[in-house]
């Protein structure tokens, strides 16, 4: 099967302006050469902590932020070089769901008008046909059709998120970029929205790019997961593999930090020291090396930028110390390496 969305070397460097003339004094490397595919009907989770570049990646796919370099191919068309008219047409196929259900709906428009707008712009339906479509969409997202004449402020957060979903679905997209779609919601409402998203995916064959910081939500909804750190993808695998056997030391630390809602589970935490370094001045070599807990970490990690390598079928990891690696031991030694790669997989939880 060929990919629905193919992202290659996607990069965004924001200039840091200094002085009266605004000369760029450096760059914030928000996203630095990110590549991945999304298959039709698949959910790819994109996780990472604040500032790792996951939202910027989503925005670049939608061309809400212009990439500095790289390509985004959707159904064989490169979106990055598309003119605005053609892009607008293609937006029918690529929709978005935002985090904050309070600011992403126009407070002056009725729910019906919000959902109908896409139908009008893309000339899908008008008049009574559009009305019928809006009713049907509301029903599909679990809201009553009468709600179409109400305004967003009359709804709770979960209901607004449903309206956002109905708006996205109106134009029959194949792909939805979901940027933290449930993180503003309470647990019980979050479950409603997640279930709805899964139902719609199953019924319509939708593909999602699910951007989130909540690792348990992502494990539940995603088929594959990409982990970002300082603008780079450091690990990419099926959800099952990633959560069972995280190979990148950062993913290991991230997963071990998730609180477990079971007081009987004794957890050995991989405690990360310090904070994420500034993306304006990222560490040399492996961006994670200053905080890394891998026992074989050595000077080579500060020199060699680790390639994202396939360490097991479908399991991609950026770490030269996690075997197997194409970065030969001789090459590592030449860069000051003293400890040969060894497999490291900390046991983090036991019942």
């Amino acid at each position, binding site marked *: 099967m060929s990919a629905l969305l193919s992202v290659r070397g996607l990069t965004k460097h924001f200039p840091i302006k200094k002085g009266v003339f605004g000369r760029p004094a450096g760059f914030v490397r928000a996203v630095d050469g990110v590549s991945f595919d999304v298959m039709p009907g698949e959910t790819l989770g994109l996780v990472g*902590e*604040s500032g790792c570049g996951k939202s910027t990646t989503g925005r670049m796919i939608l061309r809400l932020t212009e990439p500095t370099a790289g390509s985004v191919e959707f159904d064989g068309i490169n979106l990055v070089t598309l003119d605005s008219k053609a892009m607008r047409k293609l937006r029918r196929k690529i929709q978005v769901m935002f985090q904050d259900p309070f600011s992403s709906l126009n407070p002056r428009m009725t729910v019906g008008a919000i959902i109908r707008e896409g139908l009008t712009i893309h000339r899908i339906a008008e008049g009574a046909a559009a009305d019928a479509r809006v009713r049907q969409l509301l*029903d599909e997202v*679990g*809201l*009553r059709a009468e709600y179409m004449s109400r305004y967003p402020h009359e709804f*709770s957060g*979960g*209901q607004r998120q449903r309206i956002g979903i109905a708006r996205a679905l109106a134009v029959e997209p194949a792909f939805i970029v979901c940027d933290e779609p449930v993180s503003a919601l*309470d*647990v*019980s*409402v*979050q*479950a*409603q929205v*997640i*279930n709805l998203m*899964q*139902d719609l995916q199953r019924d319509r064959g939708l593909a999602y790019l699910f951007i989130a*910081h909540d*690792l*348990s*939500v992502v*494990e*539940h909804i995603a088929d594959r997961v990409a982990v970002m750190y300082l603008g780079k993808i450091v690990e990419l695998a099926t959800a099952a593999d990633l*959560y069972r056997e995280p190979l990148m030391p950062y993913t290991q*630390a*991230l*997963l*071990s*930090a*998730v*609180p*477990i*809602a*079971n*007081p*009987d589970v004794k*957890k050995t*935490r991989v*405690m*990360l020291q310090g*904070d*994420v370094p500034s993306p304006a001045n990222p560490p040399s070599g492996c961006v994670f090396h200053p905080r890394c807990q891998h026992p074989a970490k050595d000077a080579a990690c500060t020199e060699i930028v680790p390639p994202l390598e396939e360490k097991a079928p479908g399991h991609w990891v950026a770490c030269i110390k996690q075997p197997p690696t194409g970065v030969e031991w001789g090459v590592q030694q030449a860069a000051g390496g003293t400890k040969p790669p060894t497999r490291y997989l900390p046991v983090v*939880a036991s019942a």
Partner: protein
Amino acid sequence: MSLLSVHDLRTYFYTDNGLARAVDGVSFEIGAGETVGLVGESGCGKSVTALSLLRLVRPPGRIEPGSQIIFDGTDLATIDEKSMRALRGARISMVFQEPMTALNPVFTIGDQVAEVVRVHHAGSKREAWDRAVQMLETVGIPSPAQRAHEYPHQLSGGMRQRVVIAMALVMSPALVIADEPTTALDVTIQAQILELLRELQQRLGTSILLITHDLGVVAETVSRVIVMYGGEIVEEAPVRELFAQAHHPYTEGLLNAMPQVGHERERLATIPGTVPPPTSWPKGCRFHDRCPYAWDRCAAEHPPLYQIGTGHTSRCHLADEPQRRAEKHEPLVATLTGERSASR
């Protein structure tokens, strides 16, 4: 004897939309050196409970007469503002959610921690500064003597939250109320801060009331849990028991709705509907319209807190008629709104 004993706390807001009974008859205790979790979703009254304990509720809200907040033998609900001010930050303190808004951007962090000491006349300027630096070291700020001269914007989110904790602990209070202390932080930083709170709690013997919506945080941090819904306590239990045998259908719903790392499930269980507004709590049991077990009694009769076991109470008539648990059905709200809870 317990350190804090809250009895029938009611905090009402007199709003234009009517009387909002945000906290409506809450009673609980916290022992010396104990860590208690207060959980619930937005609008359940957990934060207003915290503000009430510190008497920080502003008009149109007020703590209703008859409410008692006995702290160390004194009723905080009735003492005058001057005595309250002497207690705040010294004997009881608070850690807020948003470290950026809890800190003043125009003062150095050292000044802000030292100010707490100065306000409580606990030493000269020099002594206050030294104590602040010492406290910053205790909460894990590297090279505290230099960092004390920095401003909040120069610190990361995790470091700022450490400063807020330093402010809360510098007077060695008997009770710290932490309102969502890690919600604004990334998960790896959250792990650091929770570890710090645990360590400080053990070292200093401080009691902690941890307010959060995150059941995972609760499971790892506290010994006893209080669950709030609709301005009331609906369940209280030792942490192990709550997670193993939740009694109240709301607690059960919360636990099932939460995705968990390592648990594979096809679908998440949901609680249909939303938390009702505090101006119009449903009659009878406040959860009855969202409850999959509710029967006619639940809509008519407001349930008391039933004793379930040692230290375990639940505000649910199922305690009285346990056989009803076998009769699970679609909740009332699902049929009223047309909202679907189950799969299609």
